[in-house]
């Protein structure tokens, strides 16, 4: 592992030079929350953020993404990747991106996602403040060992221990003043990354594997009905999720009525029409009830994708719990209750 050191006062010049070179996005304050957004100056960067409203997946899998442009002459693809540095990504989000990388490559490769992903450089950062509804420790997502190009560990007043993980990360080094890391600094980094626990207020009482096994058998548990009675089917939990990747494809004509675009836009399995399909001239909704949709999301996260991903499709960021207007999307109490019974 290649470790270097960046002094605290060297962070701003480093980010400044990166901004002059390439688009740099990072966590910025938005009223009482944070969002990943383009940095105009290093002063905007808030590495002390708890979490962002949307995860950084929005740069690879955009809320709305054009797929093809069509006209009477034919059609062309819309893959136009833009080099971009995503600065200050938390471990749980890095883990989620690795999952999306796998899911969008599984079977037929989705180049609309992969082109954007490959054009990005990811700079990770350890979590300073834990988001109020986060439970990443329970999901094994407080530490990542891959999925980033550089990883910064803030060891306090001195500065950052920087792990260089890839050639893309190596390429950033020319823009900052890095020094050799001392054994003491490396020791501090280890303590911060691996020595901290019990920081999340939300906790699963069982291991994800145990949860997966039992929840798989809880298809007819009364909890789904109970929780879903107040659900708005608004899909907020889906859209803020770093591992949700469903989308809807639509065609739209331009004013000339000859040319147009085909685009995709985020979809969510909580919404009523998500599972509505055309059957023999009519329509059929195979998840008509709120409770079946509510159950489906939890099943997708805790059970269905486990064999593909080698674990749950949830990283414990806590975004769904805080985004739910009816305050019922938090999977932790649901899973704990199923485990108890």
């Amino acid at each position: 592992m290649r470790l270097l050191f960046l002094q605290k006062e060297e962070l701003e010049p480093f980010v400044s030079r990166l901004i002059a070179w390439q688009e740099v996005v990072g966590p910025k304050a938005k009223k009482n929350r944070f969002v990943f957004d383009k940095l105009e100056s290093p002063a905007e960067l808030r590495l002390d953020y708890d979490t962002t409203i949307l995860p950084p997946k929005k740069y690879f899998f955009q809320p709305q993404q054009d797929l093809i442009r069509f006209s009477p002459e034919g059609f062309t693809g819309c893959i136009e990747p833009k080099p971009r540095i995503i600065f200050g990504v938390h471990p749980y989000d890095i883990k989620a991106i690795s999952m999306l990388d796998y899911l969008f490559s599984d079977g037929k490769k989705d180049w609309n996602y992969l082109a954007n992903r490959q054009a990005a450089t990811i700079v990770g950062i350890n979590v300073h403040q834990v988001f109020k509804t986060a439970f990443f420790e329970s999901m094994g997502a407080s530490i990542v060992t891959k999925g980033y190009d550089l990883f910064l560990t803030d060891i306090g007043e001195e500065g950052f221990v920087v792990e260089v993980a890839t050639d893309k990360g190596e390429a950033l080094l020319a823009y900052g003043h890095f020094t050799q890391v001392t054994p003491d600094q490396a020791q501090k980094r280890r303590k911060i990354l691996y020595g901290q626990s019990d920081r999340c207020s939300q906790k699963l009482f069982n291991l994800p594997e145990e949860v997966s096994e039992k929840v798989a058998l809880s298809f007819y548990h009364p909890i789904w009905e109970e929780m879903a009675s107040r659900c708005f089917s608004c899909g907020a939990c889906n859209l803020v999720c770093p591992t949700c990747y469903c989308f809807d494809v639509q065609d739209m004509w331009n004013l000339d009525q000859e040319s147009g675009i085909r685009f995709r836009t985020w979809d969510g399995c909580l919404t009523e029409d998500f599972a509505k399909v055309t059957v023999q001239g009519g329509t059929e909704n195979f998840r008509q009830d709120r409770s079946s949709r509510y159950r489906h999301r939890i099943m997708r996260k805790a059970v269905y994708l486990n064999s593909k991903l080698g674990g749950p499709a949830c990283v414990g960021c806590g975004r769904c719990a805080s985004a739910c207007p009816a305050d019922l999307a938090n999977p932790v109490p649901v899973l704990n209750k199923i485990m108890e019974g």
Partner: protein
Amino acid sequence: MKIPKVAFFDFTSCEGCQVEIANFDQDLLKLLQVVEVVEFREIMKETCSEPLDIAFIEGSFSREKDRERLQKIRQRANLVVAYGSCAATGGINALKNHKPDYKYKVEVYGADATMPHLETQKALPISAAIPVDLAIPGCPVNRQEFVRLVSDLLHGKAPTIPNYPVCMECKKKENICRYELQDTCLGVVARAGCGALCPSNGIPCEACRGFVDNPNLDSLVELLIKTGMQPAYAMAKARMFTANLVEE
């Protein structure tokens, strides 16, 4: 494609949706290359009585005597599009439907309150009088959506109007939830398609496009009361634009 003949008609409304279409600027000129507008009170003085490919109807059906005029439009139009919330659901006009004692007429019109053209019944969607092929909600109607849906009709594609709440669009725009800002918002049950215009500009959604197909209104009222609203006010809030969609 043959250039379709279209006309715009208005019933009980503020005609704001017509203004919205007229405000297309340069795009209006482009639109006029693909459709022939033969009647549109807000922008031209000509009227017509010929057969139409599409009749666009704004406003709600609130006077029995309007039924005949609507039927005549239906007879000569291949497609009828009810556009704007008044035409699609009854819209804000339908607020009067819950007032047995409709005293506001006197407050608003004074001595003229007894004029015959002000004699109205319940404000209902256009579909209460004649069959409509498409109803486009919105107060006012959203220009981009209007063009998209009419394009779909012209191309024989089934028009798709979102059946998910405004929350989806707020999230896509990374807006901070109004509830997180100690405000209230109807976006949780309101039909999307506006691009979360109001919450994106710092004000709560009023559900001007009506509700999604199966809104969880019990949960909405519970949520509004939780923010400190009086139950009666929460109920009134929930039906500002949606009086015909909410039971007493």
